[in-house]
């Protein structure tokens, strides 16, 4: 973009991380909390695409669904089944939240695959907020459902001595906090790595002249892989939310 003129000499003019830069849409001052950035734009587009599919496409409520309605129904039914399978009947209450998470991540991952678009889920800031929201929800649900007994999750009463129990309690507490961290790193890392790899291969194609045909085929293959990763990561995020929810609803397993 603006900096391209600066780094010119080498034929390998590859800047794989430039695509993750957040910059304001209007003007080019520093990014404030209120400035509309490309991240804002693509998150809004994500929400718009979801509304288009889940609200507008199904608004006909046709007996014989058209294409849009049946895809919406498939997504809905798929998530519903997943929630009921993993979190049980009690977990079905939290289905709207999980469907929202799943659709948001899925659509923002898929929209990020459009060339020159921006991937909000490749930023750890976005995925960490999603993961912390899940973490807080699950913890609150655990305390509301089980009261103080929820803390017994951290106290291994089968250990022989109190000193050992204290050490184990520290380990258990850390491992409880591992979940939001791994939850967010997994999604953000996957998306960022995939997009960076695509950009690196695109850079090779730019440098190789006629030989560019090889990296172009590689890009096609990686693009397919990224399509898979985008869907799987959304699925994994949603199913792990169900697993954590299930742990909070039935502690002591």
């Amino acid at each position: 973009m603006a900096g391209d003129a600066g780094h010119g000499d080498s034929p390998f003019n590859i800047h794989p991380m430039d695509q993750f830069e957040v910059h304001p849409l209007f003007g080019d001052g520093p990014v404030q909390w209120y400035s509309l950035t490309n991240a804002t734009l693509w998150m809004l587009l994500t929400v718009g695409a979801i509304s288009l599919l889940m609200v507008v496409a199904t608004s006909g409520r046709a007996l014989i669904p058209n294409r849009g309605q049946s895809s919406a129904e498939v997504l809905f039914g798929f998530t519903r089944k997943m929630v009921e399978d993993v979190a049980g009947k009690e977990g079905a209450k939290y289905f709207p939240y999980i469907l929202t998470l799943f659709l948001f991540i899925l659509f923002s991952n898929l929209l990020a695959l459009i060339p020159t678009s921006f991937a909000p889920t490749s930023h750890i800031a976005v995925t960490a907020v999603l993961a912390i929201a899940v973490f807080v929800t699950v913890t609150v649900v655990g305390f509301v459902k089980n009261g103080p007994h929820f803390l017994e999750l951290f106290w291994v009463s089968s250990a022989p001595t109190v000193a050992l129990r204290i050490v184990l309690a520290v380990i258990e507490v850390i491992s409880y906090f591992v979940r939001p961290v791994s939850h967010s790193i997994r999604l953000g890392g996957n998306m960022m790595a995939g997009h960076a790899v695509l950009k690196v291969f695109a850079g090779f194609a730019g440098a190789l002249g006629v030989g560019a045909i090889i990296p172009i085929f590689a890009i096609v293959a990686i693009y397919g892989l990224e399509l898979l990763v985008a869907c799987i990561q959304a699925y994994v995020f949603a199913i792990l939310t169900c697993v954590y929810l299930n742990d909070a609803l039935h502690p002591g397993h």
Partner: protein
Amino acid sequence: MEKDTFSERLKALEDRISAAKTSREPASVTGAQDKFTKGSLAWRMVTELVAGMLLGLSIGYGLDSLFGTLPVFLVLFCLLGFAAGVRTMIRTAEQVRKGESEAARLANAPATKAAPPENGGAGTPPRAEDRKATGADGPGKD
């Protein structure tokens, strides 16, 4: 009168759909999903291990910079974090094993052939009701 035959036909169609679904579902679903879940499972365990260590490391470093005792808590919590990571990973593995034995039990027992239709049945009636309710203004395709 007209409505009655309509809902009857709908019911017959619903039955035929669920029969067709149960006859072809098992093979197609598990094959594709298995590969995905295996791959994402490995990835999940790795991140849990790494996240445990990172968390222990940062807690230790934070405590050390708070008390000014640099290597002590760092070392201690690094080990604790590693233990926590392994703990989480093992729990994940346990969960998977439990799920797998459950799936195997379901697949082996011939009596559970009734399970998928029952499952589908639980999901479809509300939708059928929904369709019936809104069926009046549906497209006049039939």
